[in-house]
């Protein structure tokens, strides 16, 4: 039993890592007031880009960087549409997802079935990785797992303890107030959405060059939508995003382990989404919204009042 739990925990962390990257990005974007439903599209384009670049250069890091960049560029499409042109954020995000799915399919055709040229060696943290139980559980992963974990406190710190964070949150809560105090609302939102794209790209890269080490069409399989759910589930907070991502990742892993025990994996898979709806419900009340709810200006394009 103990071994089983350990096994699941150990598998949950890599499974949750792409979700964590995506969620950290989406948390940032939504904190600035922009909902980007294009995560699935940005992730899958990131996945195919990372795989392609890694195959041609033999360097995974280059692949990951390229994926981030491409994810960011796609996000800028959404930023232009929703921030500058003020089109409906929901529909624009959906369009981005479709565009991403299409592009990845077209680009990725040549990579289907290709064996990976290289893969990450697990990065065993010297000294710690040999500890019993804790060693294998915490200290024997690929570098991107650590990167994701490291980003959590960094993002948390930026969000709550720096000037940038105050600016970012104020833009998502009350853009008119921020604008009146000289904050460039548009620039902040563009940057936040761009960062969201970078992170989604890396998340996608993780799937193709680390987790699966292959390109499979449609391989994100809804991970981007889980990111959307996770962002709500985490109540727009990076630390809760970490817990949520590993929890959701754990659920994905667990489904294969519990099936023999007669527990339906599909019913298990519903849980994250049901939780998310519950979070939406609980945080809908005015008092709760102020504490844990969505940013006040989420989904609202900003327009300075003309005099």
């Amino acid at each position, binding site marked *: 039993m103990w071994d089983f739990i350990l096994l699941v925990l150990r598998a949950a962390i890599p499974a949750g890592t792409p979700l964590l990257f995506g969620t950290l990005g989406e948390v940032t974007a939504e904190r600035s007031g922009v909902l980007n439903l294009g995560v699935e599209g940005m992730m899958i384009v990131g996945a195919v880009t990372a795989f392609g670049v890694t195959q041609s250069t033999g360097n995974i890091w280059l692949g990951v960087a390229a994926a981030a960049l491409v994810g960011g560029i796609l996000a800028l499409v959404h930023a232009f549409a929703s921030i500058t042109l003020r089109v409906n954020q929901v529909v624009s995000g959906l369009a981005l997802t479709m565009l991403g799915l299409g592009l990845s399919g077209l680009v990725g055709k040549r990579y289907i079935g290709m064996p990976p040229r290289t893969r990450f060696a697990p990065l065993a943290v010297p000294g710690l990785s040999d500890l019993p139980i804790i060693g294998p559980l915490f200290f024997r992963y690929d570098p991107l797992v650590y990167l994701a974990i490291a980003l959590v406190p960094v993002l948390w710190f930026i969000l709550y303890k720096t000037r940038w964070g105050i600016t970012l949150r104020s833009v998502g809560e009350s853009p008119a107030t921020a604008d009146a105090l000289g904050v460039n609302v548009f620039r902040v939102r563009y940057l936040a959405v761009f960062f969201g794209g970078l992170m989604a790209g890396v998340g996608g890269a993780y799937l193709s060059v680390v987790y699966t080490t292959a390109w499979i069409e449609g391989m994100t399989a809804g991970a981007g939508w889980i990111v959307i759910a996770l962002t709500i589930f985490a109540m727009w907070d990076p630390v809760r995003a970490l817990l949520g991502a590993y929890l959701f990742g754990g659920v994905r892993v667990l489904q294969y382990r519990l099936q023999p025990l007669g527990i339906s994996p599909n019913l298990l898979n519903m849980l994250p*989404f049901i939780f998310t709806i519950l979070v939406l419900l609980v945080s809908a009340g005015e008092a709760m919204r102020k504490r844990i709810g969505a940013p006040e200006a989420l989904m609202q394009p900003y327009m300075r009042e003309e005099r």
Partner: protein
Amino acid sequence: MKGWLSLRLEKRLAVPRWLEYLTLALSLLLALAVIAVLFRALGVNPIVAYQRIFRGAFGSLYGLSETIVKAIPLMLVGVGLTIAFRARVYNIGAEGQLLVGAICATGLALACPNWPAWLLLPGMFVVGFVGGALWAMIPALLKARFRVDEVLSSLMMVYIASELVNYLVYGPWKGAKEMGFPYTDKFSPSAQLPRLLPTRIHYPTLILAVVSAVLAYLLIQRTKWGFEIRVTGENPEAARYAGMNYFTTVLLVMLLSGGLAGLAGVGEVAGIHYRLRYPQGVSPGYGFTAIIVAWLARLNPLAVILTALLLGGLLVGGDAIQVALGLPVATMYIFNGVILLFVLGGEVFTRYQIRLEWRRKT
């Protein structure tokens, strides 16, 4: 010369009709041009690809019939979405409502295989409508009663529905004769919709779709409920002032859009597959594609008939280039995405006057 180029939008009051159509046409053309450039860059000859797509979708009787087959669910869902979007209720969970419609119809078909077709098929449509509507009621009630944002909640409901289908086809409803595929058993003949042979057009659903488009048009333009929907969507405060009930309007539009999506699900299982399959096997994202259908139709239910055929054609065209040029089916999503982005962008030109200004640094 220090400064920057700034783009300013100013609200337009009157939008001439011709300008709306012109921008729509230009947006479509521009989208096609951009896709052509994308194709070129990725090593596909765009002219050949466009030819194949057009020929595949509209160039033969078979292609045309398949276009109609794919347009049927898009039409049903799209019509429902125009109703919801008119009230500014953003139901983006139609995919889930479609799946639940399919589940309910399948449930009836499997439970009562010996009912005569004249009873069973209408019964399936009824339970499908009810199922889809009930599924939509959850986000509707959450919105109307607790002010939960319907975009996110209805989206979450899609994935719950999808897992529900998986659960059923891998679990309790898994067919005995399906050799391990995630399918239910095949429906009895009385649960199979008639087709316009030799095509796969299940014409009862097609008729239902066209009729629902006309009815939705009448509903919106000619009835008091439609009046309430339009007023609520345009100006919720005025709706309150006019004594309209927000709660019932939200419930009504979600009920109708969910129900129509449910009918689309029934059409797929009873008209095409004759069984419930894994979710992507029932619907390759019709519920999401229908959002484009509704938007392209400018939320006019009658125009949905045309835009559904257009998007249906794109899906079939996708199959054609898959065969002819060896491109993945997903390629067609590029069309969906780019067209939608350009149409959205084009709308901005009709709603606002766009000014480019050179601003000096002060």
